[in-house]
């Protein structure tokens, strides 16, 4: 039996004798490993990005609203938003027991309301919210203040503007805070400006409902409700639960509480951020599986390239195999020689693939704003896979070489 170092030297020499062929086989594995790396990077980066964007809605958020399909067929539609100021107060009073940290009513305009300053008009998402809203959705103020309790109770005509609205609507010569705007003809004072938020990625896959986070305009919910037909009506409640895992349970409790308080037979629906996250995870997981399968196929093709090359090498070197056997090489010596050649090609391809994959990830991160999440596990796995691919694809040709009959091998041209 020959020593490992000698086997390695021989393998390197044999590979060096066929540089182009070796390079092409290496390239096959390089592409495969680079593809795997890219998929892993995109998967991890995408996941990170989605989570950081979901955070802008509040990860512990849950929503409760009236389910308008609660009227039995044939009966007249039951009126009302189903949630009123008394409900809000009642839930607020039981908040700790229900597992709610804080909550905000949400009110949406019941008709198209114009938003203007002088002759400037914007088209923005107008909502009425409570004082806790800013904290629940992780909004930050770049100027002014948020809503105080008195703004809500006294139905003050004050507004918070997200950056796009502020830029399109306000007089750029003056400080934004303190300017007046008109909503549906009524005068509102700007009391605060919100910091920009990124939801580009979510918007691009549709999970954000097409709503841009920077196109929002917030007013006290009581004020907005009073401008519509139902001065105390709340369209939905946004809850921030104490414990992420209990979001569904808390939502169910609030729903049954609301049902008890409205015995005329109203039904309530609920959604949690936790369930959105689960959905997003499923989508990303699906994308990752497709990507991994595609990358694995290119790795498989790379492996077949090695098998092809080693098969050719064994045929070409039949006589050499015969000579080596005649002068004392065992089957294991011959097997090791060809396996090491295959593994070397594969490992070289793996290392090169890692390099290219990493470079591609860096470029990708720079272009798309994906965060670069380095993964030592992925790197080790890629190397392990490339060694494995080399050994597997080298196995059959190497075994054929090892089992050649020395006399027949020596007779080859």
């Amino acid at each position: 039996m020959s020593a490992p170092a000698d086997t390695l030297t021989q393998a390197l020499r044999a590979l060096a004798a066929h540089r182009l062929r070796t390079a092409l086989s290496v390239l096959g594995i390089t592409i495969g490993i680079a593809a795997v790396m890219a998929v892993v990077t995109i998967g991890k980066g995408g996941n990170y990005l989605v989570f950081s964007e979901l955070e802008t809605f509040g990860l512990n958020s849950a929503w409760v609203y009236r389910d308008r399909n609660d009227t039995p067929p044939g009966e007249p539609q039951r009126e009302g938003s189903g949630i009123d100021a008394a409900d809000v107060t009642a839930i607020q009073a039981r908040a700790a027991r229900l597992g709610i940290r804080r909550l905000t009513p949400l009110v949406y305009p019941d008709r198209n309301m114009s938003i203007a300053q002088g002759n400037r008009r914007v088209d923005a998402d107008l909502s009425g919210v409570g004082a806790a809203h800013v904290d629940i959705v992780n909004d930050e103020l770049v100027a002014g203040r948020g809503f105080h309790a008195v703004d809500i109770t006294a139905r003050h005509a004050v507004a918070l503007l997200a950056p796009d609205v502020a830029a399109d609507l306000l007089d750029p010569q003056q400080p934004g805070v303190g300017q007046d705007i008109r909503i549906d003809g009524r005068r509102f004072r700007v009391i605060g400006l919100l910091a920009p938020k990124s939801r580009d990625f979510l918007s691009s896959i549709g999970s954000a409902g097409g709503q841009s986070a920077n196109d929002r305009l917030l007013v006290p919910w009581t004020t907005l409700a009073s401008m519509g037909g139902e001065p105390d009506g709340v369209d939905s409640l946004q809850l921030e639960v104490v414990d992420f895992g209990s979001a569904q349970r808390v939502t169910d409790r609030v729903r049954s509480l609301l049902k008890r308080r409205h015995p005329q037979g109203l039904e309530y629906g609920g959604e949690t951020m936790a369930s959105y996250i689960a959905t997003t995870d499923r989508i990303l997981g699906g994308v990752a599986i497709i990507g991994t399968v595609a990358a694995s196929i290119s790795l498989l093709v790379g492996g077949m390239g090695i098998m092809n090359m080693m098969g050719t090498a064994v045929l070409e070197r039949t006589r050499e195999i015969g000579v080596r056997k005649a002068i004392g090489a065992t089957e294991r010596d011959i097997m090791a020689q060809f396996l090491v050649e295959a593994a070397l090609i594969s490992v070289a391809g793996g290392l090169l693939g890692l390099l290219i994959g990493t470079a591609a990830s860096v470029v990708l991160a720079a272009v798309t704003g994906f965060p670069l999440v380095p993964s030592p596990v992925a790197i080790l796995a890629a190397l392990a896979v490339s060694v494995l691919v080399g050994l597997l694809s080298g196995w059959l040709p190497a075994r054929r070489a090892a089992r050649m009959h020395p006399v027949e091998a020596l007779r080859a041209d």
Partner: protein
Amino acid sequence: MIELADIVKGYRSASLSLTVLRGVSLSIARGEFVAIMGPSGSGKSTLLNVIGCLDGFDAGGYRFAGEDVGTLGTDALAALRARRLGFVFQSFNLISQLDALGNVALPLVYAGDVARADRLERARRGLADVGLADRLHHRPAELSGGQRQRVAIARALVNDPDVIIADEPTGNLDSATGKEVMAMFERLHARGRTIVMVTHEVEVAAHASRRVTLRDGRVVEDVAMCSAA
């Protein structure tokens, strides 16, 4: 050294069955230089392959230095070739990617348990012995036919084998280089090496101490000769 008893060996394929050796008994003592002769198809190459433990046989018995070759597995046969046999082929059969030194050292790689520095030193001495001290790092393609066969002889000798197996060692050489190579064999014989050589040339066989002639897979003549040298 070599005891062949009634060796039978044939080749079978789908279309034909051919018995090449039909009961060959042959005994070669240590230090003999045996030339195996015979017309093509007589089975002389097959016999040499059996003696060199490159090929098996169907019936009969073979003892090499007391060992029953018929019972040995492939690894044991490889070890036998690595340590106790040296091969010289008609077409040299050097490995083209290795230089002369690497080719000569290769049997020691497979024999194992010889350190690299030691291997190279022994190979260097072997090449010096065949007059190629100045060709250590030439590859086979950069050497003449005679030089290649001398590298091959150095390779066959490097593991200090009990027996040298030579298959038409002068077949690919012009007569002058052929004579040189045979002179080298005679010197080895004179120093006590056992050599078994196949040839179809009478002048080449004349260098041996004993001539065994095969015909149709049987030994038809076995004569001792006074060395012509």
